[in-house]
């Protein structure tokens, strides 16, 4: 049985008249088990592979091999299907004109591998059609409580307008989770990130086709290790208070604020997807009506809920004090993740400015990113930034844009921008 714990890191002391309370809440899960084994419903997995013409014969062969590797990682008893996508979506397995899924066993696994081997490159790219088909396929198995998809693309979403893609993303949000990968350098990070973020998944670049299989295996293994089908983060704030934001800040930055659904007038729920044995950090900010010196009150109850059941709770407190030694202290956890969030923004804004030819803004933003990465000890980010800028002064954020940059390095910096380092506790 999965067990959850929640720990709160904050400076609860507010100065006279202070209203804003910030806290980092670490939620940890242990004993999660594996997908579909927890007894609370079945797990489903759909592999979506880009078979557009741009993939070419070699790309499709690599993708097919990667899909076969992924099929090997899906646990027996898990419902699954394979979709091949170009400017329209096709159910590659099970072979059926209507949406359908089957349970994994040695025979269906082999049949699926055979079907995948028949992939060929043809047509354009319309990812919205792939997502819609995946949603319909998942819907055919009512017992599914855990629905995960792996989506691979290699190019821009040329055969579908951005508006249509947006509508599709909205329509399928909450239906299933989706980890997205782009192979090569012809795809748009922003476009794919929109899908992954809405569908509570990750986005990353796979620079070369021969790296596909290893990445696919890792993603499916990870999905299969999520024994808790889905959990909600709940945030209670007192009457009259305002929830300024709720962000996941580790392992990646993900703003949950707009995903709130109401549990009751004082409590909002934010979907967090499935959980394995892992730990995630959340940054919660609440604005309260100021109380008198010496008064204490609860600023938030931060809970993790499985369905209607609250399985862990952390309390965020507020205590007004006139002792400046207490009220001016900044929680190291809050400071660390505030810096990491700004780092993600600085990288994305810097790269966007660079792409738009605004060298001055790009230099400033990426310089700030270098400075923040150093301050928060995010060495991975520093390494990636070094491939895009020459660093003159790390502490002051003085950088110059490199004359020539590998497109893949730039995309890797972009896709990894939301990855954070944990604060040392």
């Amino acid at each position, binding site marked *: 049985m999965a067990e959850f714990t929640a720990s709160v890191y904050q400076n609860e002391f507010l100065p006279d008249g202070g209203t804003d309370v910030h806290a980092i809440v670490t939620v940890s899960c242990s004993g999660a088990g594996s997908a579909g084994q927890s007894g609370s419903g079945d797990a489903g997995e759909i592999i979506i592979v880009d078979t557009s013409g741009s993939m070419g014969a070699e790309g499709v062969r690599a993708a097919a091999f990667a899909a076969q590797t992924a099929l090997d990682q899906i646990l027996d008893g898990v419902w699954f299907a394979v979709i091949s996508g170009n400017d329209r979506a096709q159910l590659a397995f099970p072979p059926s004109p209507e949406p359908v899924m089957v349970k994994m066993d040695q025979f269906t696994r082999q049949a699926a591998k055979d079907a995948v081997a028949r992939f060929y490159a043809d047509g354009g790219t319309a990812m919205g059609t792939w997502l819609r088909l995946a949603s319909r396929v998942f819907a055919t198995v009512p017992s599914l409580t855990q629905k995960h998809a792996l989506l691979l693309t290699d190019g821009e979403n040329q055969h579908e307008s951005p508006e249509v893609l947006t509508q599709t993303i909205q329509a399928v949000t909450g239906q299933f989770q989706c980890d997205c990968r782009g192979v090569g350098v012809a795809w748009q990070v922003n476009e794919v990130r929109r899908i992954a973020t809405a569908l509570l998944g990750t986005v990353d670049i796979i620079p070369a086709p021969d790296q596909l299989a290893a990445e696919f295996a890792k993603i499916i293994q990870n999905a299969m290790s999520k024994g808790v089908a889905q959990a909600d983060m709940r945030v209670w704030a*007192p009457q009259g208070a305002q929830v300024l934001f709720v962000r996941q800040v580790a392992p990646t930055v993900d703003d949950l604020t707009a995903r709130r659904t109401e549990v009751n007038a004082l409590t909002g729920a934010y979907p967090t997807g499935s959980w394995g044995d892992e730990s995630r950090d959340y940054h919660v900010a609440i604005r309260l009506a100021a109380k008198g010196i*010496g008064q204490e009150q*609860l600023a938030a109850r931060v809970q993790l809920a499985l369905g209607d059941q609250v399985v862990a709770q952390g309390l965020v407190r507020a*205590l007004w004090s006139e002792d400046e030694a207490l009220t001016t202290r900044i929680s190291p956890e809050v400071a660390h993740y505030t810096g990491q969030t700004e780092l993600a923004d600085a990288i994305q804004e810097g790269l966007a400015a660079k792409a738009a030819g605004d060298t001055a803004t790009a230099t400033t933003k990426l310089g700030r990113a270098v400075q923040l990465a150093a301050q928060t000890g995010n060495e991975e980010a520093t390494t990636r930034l070094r491939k895009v800028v020459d660093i003159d002064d790390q502490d002051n954020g003085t950088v110059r844009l490199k004359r020539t940059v590998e497109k893949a390095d730039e995309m890797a910096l972009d896709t990894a921008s939301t990855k954070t380092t944990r604060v040392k506790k």
Partner: protein
Amino acid sequence: MTSTTKTVCPSCGGPISEADRFCETCGAELTPATPGTPALDTDTEPTIELHPGAARGAEAAPGPCRSCGGAISADGYCENCGTKATKPRDHFSEQPAPWVAAVCDRGIRHSRNEDAVAIAADPEPGSRALLVVCDGVSSSLDSDVASLAAARAARDVLEAGNAQGMGTESSRISAVVARLNAAADAASDAVLANTSPDSPNPASCTFVATVLEGDLLVAGVVGDSRAYWFPDNAEAVALTVDDSWAAELIATGVPRHEAETGPQAHAITRWLGKDAPDHTPRTTSMKVVGPGWLMACSDGLWNYCSEAAPLADLTRQTAAAHGGDPLATASALVDWANAQGGQDNITVALARI
């Protein structure tokens, strides 16, 4: 959530079990709880001897939120407005007989209630009443635990004793004074018992006790908690003189208001505790003629009304507004002090004679 067997270290507040001799967290030596003198857990200990008629719910279920009336969650905060639920130690009242009552409150500015009160009375109105108030010194550790233990120990000594001397007026007085001395000794022992031996900042508190027996009223004081007699048809009497820097200034001719608002106003010159030079109470006695109010209180109240005459007026008016009920009157006086700012813990004990 809170186990009744769980206690906290009196030195650092860390968790300890009853079998521990030393605190795991800070290493302080722990006084074993002996039968008859149970350790006080200020988080969970219900106030003793709650008057059965007092308007309070079952002790286990924390009442509605004092701020908005909402339900209190198991986590100790209101489910609606988030206000922290009051701990029993933060606000409690006693009413051993209908004519005697006391209210002890954390106030507004302080984070814990280091005031304490313990009272006793015979049922017959005006017969026998014992009021003890101890105000923990907030610059020392564990003063909230020590002050409550001290007040209760003193009250128990006063309650047990009934020596009348040879029955003459002067021998009755000296018998009561001897009891007050013994009560102060017991209170001092209780403070020491709740001070960890190597505490860098030993617990300490003030002490004021009044003994009313028939027409004899004796008050004893160590520190700056006070006793007053407010007769209905005569001038109000301050029964005690503070052991404080301010009182010494007043004795040299400095006006009371100036002395009591100066920078050293709250420095006391005598107290109960490990580092106290002397804790023999200074006593005064008087004969009670006619009806009136006997009050013992901490500086949380008199800070806002120090002179005997205006405090008597305030008490009489407040009593009149509450039908002369001692508990309602004491409670209203605490509310009044909170309305003035509640800068300190507030204790008011009253006997209607």
